[in-house]
């Protein structure tokens, strides 16, 4: 499978440009990708024009010349530099996507910052998480951009606590004066690096090999996801309003 970052077909900072560039799933401009998917499974990011109105920030899985599944971003960050809630509608559900390579939990950037997303998906016996991202970064004293460091913690936590490999692709370099942090990475169910991290500022192709049998062994030895008790999670968060 070749996995591209969030909104890979359009760029991240389109703002109202999504009105012009959003594609329907039957858009003929997807033909070259559908054709390529006869040889390789593809996961791409794009602004998706919905049948009944609205535009989703979507990840589309293609295989065998067909669209095998779509994940629509659930959590649209609208704070700080982000304004996604203004341009996109939130996805309605969280379900794994399936192709001949297995069953995958697809998370788009902010989705992964809500750890519940990976916990919920991990009940579906996943073969891996695909986290596709357009993660901006700032610079601090670190030798790598701060964004890559935060992703490392989050993705490592997802992999280790769900005992599932995580494949992360992130936009890199500059777009509209915003620096994206790159550092794409693949990590195994015990937190060991499978590939990467990619450089922060340069485009790169990472190749990661993952073993379904090895992941199953890891879950046998550390069966953490099978013990998950979602019924402990019923109450809405108390806001502590003044």
């Amino acid at each position, binding site marked *: 499978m070749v996995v591209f970052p969030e909104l890979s077909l359009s760029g991240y900072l*389109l*703002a*109202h440009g999504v009105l012009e560039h959003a594609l329907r799933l039957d858009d003929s401009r997807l033909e070259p990708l559908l054709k390529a998917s006869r040889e390789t499974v593809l996961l791409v990011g794009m602004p998706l024009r919905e049948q009944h109105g609205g535009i989703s920030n979507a990840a589309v899985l293609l295989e065998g010349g067909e669209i095998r599944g779509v994940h629509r971003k659930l959590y649209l960050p609208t704070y700080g530099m982000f304004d996604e809630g203004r341009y996109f509608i939130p996805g309605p559900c969280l379900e794994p996507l399936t192709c001949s390579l297995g069953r995958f939990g697809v998370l788009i950037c902010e989705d992964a910052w809500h750890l519940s997303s990976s916990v919920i998906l991990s009940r579906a016996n996943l073969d891996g998480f695909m986290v596709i991202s357009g993660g901006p970064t700032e*610079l*601090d*004293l670190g030798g790598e951009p701060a964004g890559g460091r935060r992703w490392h913690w989050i993705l490592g936590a997802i992999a280790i606590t769900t005992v599932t490999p995580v494949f992360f692709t992130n936009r890199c370099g*500059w*777009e509209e004066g915003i*620096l994206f942090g790159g550092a794409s990475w693949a990590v195994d169910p015990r937190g060991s690096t499978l590939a990467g991290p990619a450089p922060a*500022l340069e485009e790169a192709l990472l190749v990661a090999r993952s073993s379904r049998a090895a992941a199953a062994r890891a879950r046998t030895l550390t069966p953490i996801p099978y013990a998950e008790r979602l019924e402990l999670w019923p109450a809405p968060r108390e806001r502590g309003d003044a």
Partner: protein
Amino acid sequence: MLELPPVNVQLLAQAIKAFLAEELRASGLAGYLVGLSGGVDSAVSAALAATAVGPDRVSALALPGPTSSPESLRDATMVADAFGLQLQVLDLTRPGDMLAETLDARADRVRFGNLMARMRMVALFDRARPVPALVLGTSNKSEILLGYSTLFGDAAASVQPLGDVWKTHVFALARALGVPESVITKAPTADLWPGQTDAGELGFEYATVDPVLYWHHEGGMGRDELVASGFPPPLVDGALEAYRRNRFKWRPTVVARVSASCINVDRILPRNPER
């Protein structure tokens, strides 16, 4: 006392160079044009551009006026030499005096200073056109936050590589990039009248005010919290007053919205559609 968090200067330089390369690529233009004042901001901007896209694609202008000190031109020349830039000197003394006389602005040093800053902007954008080049901005985050700039003068540029970089970190970049020592150690000045310094006008040094600005602007601390954390009240009040008073310069104009498609309000679009 709260401090300005340090930054990895090597990575900062590397990132800004990538920014300058990308903006030039996206614009499709031939290079950058920078006005070298002899100060540290324009020296750092020029050094970053020269190493990002090559010194042959960065041209430099020195634009002395009636009030410029001779050291400024000397230092601008030193900076150009240090980074392999072709420096052209255009003396704006006569046109500056003429325009000031026409406008009757010579007696008011602030008006005259603004006039010269805007005249330099005119010269830079005019000379950029035939190259064609992007005008390389030299404003830093500290002076933007304090509003210590001339609207449509030095604040006007095609790109602002240092616009999110604290002045304290501009000095660190200058050392890392090999900017001549005398440019780094001299007192920052807008050179708008003889003996003018930023600190003299603002009432504080950048090294002193940067932590206050950081903890207010990024850290979200209010006046009382800043004072309680140990910053002297006159420093905090002076910094926050400039921050508040000059905020209009962050958005140089305001459009009256009378439709549902007001540009940059209802319709926000990328700057470079073919990026």
